[in-house]
């Protein structure tokens, strides 16, 4: 299983902003889409990521944070994933490096975003599925032998 399998059932693209947009606009987007992070893009390539945490952290210490732009608060060193990256590696890297949101890029174009929650859920469903398959086989096997 890879990142593409997660994106396939997420439908919508990542929600994007431009670095020069205001924090107020960014907040409105987070609220409207009910999400935790935005990808800042220049053209079609991601240049940063802005999470609600970044905003809360700034708001706690800066009365005038509304005057800032996305570029002021975004994290610039974004790690991006590719659709074919396998889930196990991605899960490991996200946990180890404390990445909550991973923009996914295909040929330098942003194609979506996965959160650590998505990755954990996909892994859990995967294991659950394997256990279920074994279980049905064993149970059915027993009743199958009976007749």
């Amino acid at each position, binding site marked *: *299983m890879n990142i*593409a*399998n*997660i*994106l*396939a*059932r*997420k*439908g*919508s693209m990542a929600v994007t902003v431009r670095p020069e947009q205001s924090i107020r606009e960014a907040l409105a987007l987070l609220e409207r889409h009910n999400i935790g992070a935005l990808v800042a893009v220049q053209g079609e390539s991601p240049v940063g990521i802005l999470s609600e945490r970044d905003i809360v952290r700034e708001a706690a210490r800066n009365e005038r944070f509304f005057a800032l732009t996305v570029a002021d608060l975004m994290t610039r060193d974004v*790690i*991006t*994933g*590719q659709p*074919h*990256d*396998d889930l*196990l*590696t*991605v899960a*490991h*890297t*996200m946990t180890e490096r404390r990445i909550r949101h*991973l923009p996914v890029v*295909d040929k330098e174009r942003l*194609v979506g975003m996965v959160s650590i929650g998505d990755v954990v859920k996909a892994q*859990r*469903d*995967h294991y*659950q*599925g*394997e*256990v*279920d*398959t*074994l*279980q*049905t*086989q064993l149970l*059915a*096997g027993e*009743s*199958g032998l009976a007749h």
Partner: protein
Amino acid sequence: MTTTTGTPARPLRVAIIGAGPTGFYVADHLLRNPGVAVEVDMLDRLPTPYGLVRLGVAPDHQKIKFVTNAFDKVAASPGFRFFGGVDFGKHVTLADLRAHYHQIVYCTGAQTDRRMGIPGEDLAGSHPATEFVAWYNGHPDYRDCMFDLSQESVAVVGVGNVAVDVVRILCRTPEELATTDIADYALDALRKSRVKEVYLLGRRGPAQAAFTNPEIRELGELPDADIAADPAEVELDPLSRAAVERSQDRATAKKVEILRAYARRPASGKSKRLVLRFLVSPVELIGDDAGRVAAMRLVRNELYATSTGALQPRATGRFEEIPVGLVFRSVGYRGVPLSGVPFNESWGVILNDKGRVLDPGTKEPLVGEYTAGWIKRGPTGVIGTNKPDAAETVECMFEDLARGAVLEPAHPEAAAAETLVRQRQPSFVSYNDWLKLDALEVAHGRAEGRPRVKLTSVEEILAALGR
């Protein structure tokens, strides 16, 4: 009015398109919910249910097929009907279903194959594994396929579990196959097989191989095929070694150990030889004068780490050629669009969010349309993986019902839907019909010491039902 939908007086009427594992899991989750009265009609383009469990799962893996006992239990629930032989897009359209159901769930799986995208791919003798698999399993649409099994040397591209199925079937003896439910015509063709050497080709290393451990172990236990691997190719490169150590993934470590043991194993003079290769990609299929595959040109790969640490293949400048007369590409399945249903070309799935089908323009959910299984998330995962996937979709369906966001069909009666099907496909197969066919197949099989003998054409199936 809509608020009363889901009560015994006005049950929630759901059409499930596709009778594979996913269709049954969706039906089960819907029918088992105590709070909502639900009626399910399950349609499949084929007269027989179970999707890939009947037509994909290998004939020498009968135990896996026991899962159908669980599906039969679902089918026995009150409120469940099966209409086999009814093709969505041909016999019934989206408009028809909207006029008869409150909700529609697409569970149509992945009906075609992915391509390698290399020159020579369409030469005679080069086939998708999907066709070979459907053929040996008796899929009515593929029973007339021809594979030139007079060739001695065969290559299978890809190292997923499907590729393993294909090489295993090629390496089994006729005696072994004769105790399975493999299609009769395929058994005949494989009896005459002259295949001696089978290559299994992975583009990445042993640690990245998609096959699972029980499957690769089984390849080492074939009665009449020796297994071989190149010792250098099964040694881990530094990147892979570091990745395996870091992830502490015991299954992968074990897999590499199994493969290394194969590389050390001496040949024992069995009639066939199965050769595992890693870090090679086909770049071209080379034809003979008659336009038939004669050889495959391979490039050697090395691995590099992407920014998340995933290891991907990159071609080196080193090439080689292997003589092969038959090629199966097993590089994955792919979903096909359904008429009138939004499709996501990038991933080959129905455009959806957690199973709610989306309007391609607004990206908002379409009322009453859902999807689950391989056509929702792509062609990966074992049978049981579709169960949590189906649960997620059904959760969305019940949420939307609670909000009153369901279709408002003009004819929400079970009888009206049956009339529609009878008009469009008079020779549809019901679940009771299927249980009769099943008993026939099993009885026929018992006489031959096999789990069943499959009926493999729609005509045969209808004739067996006296139509």
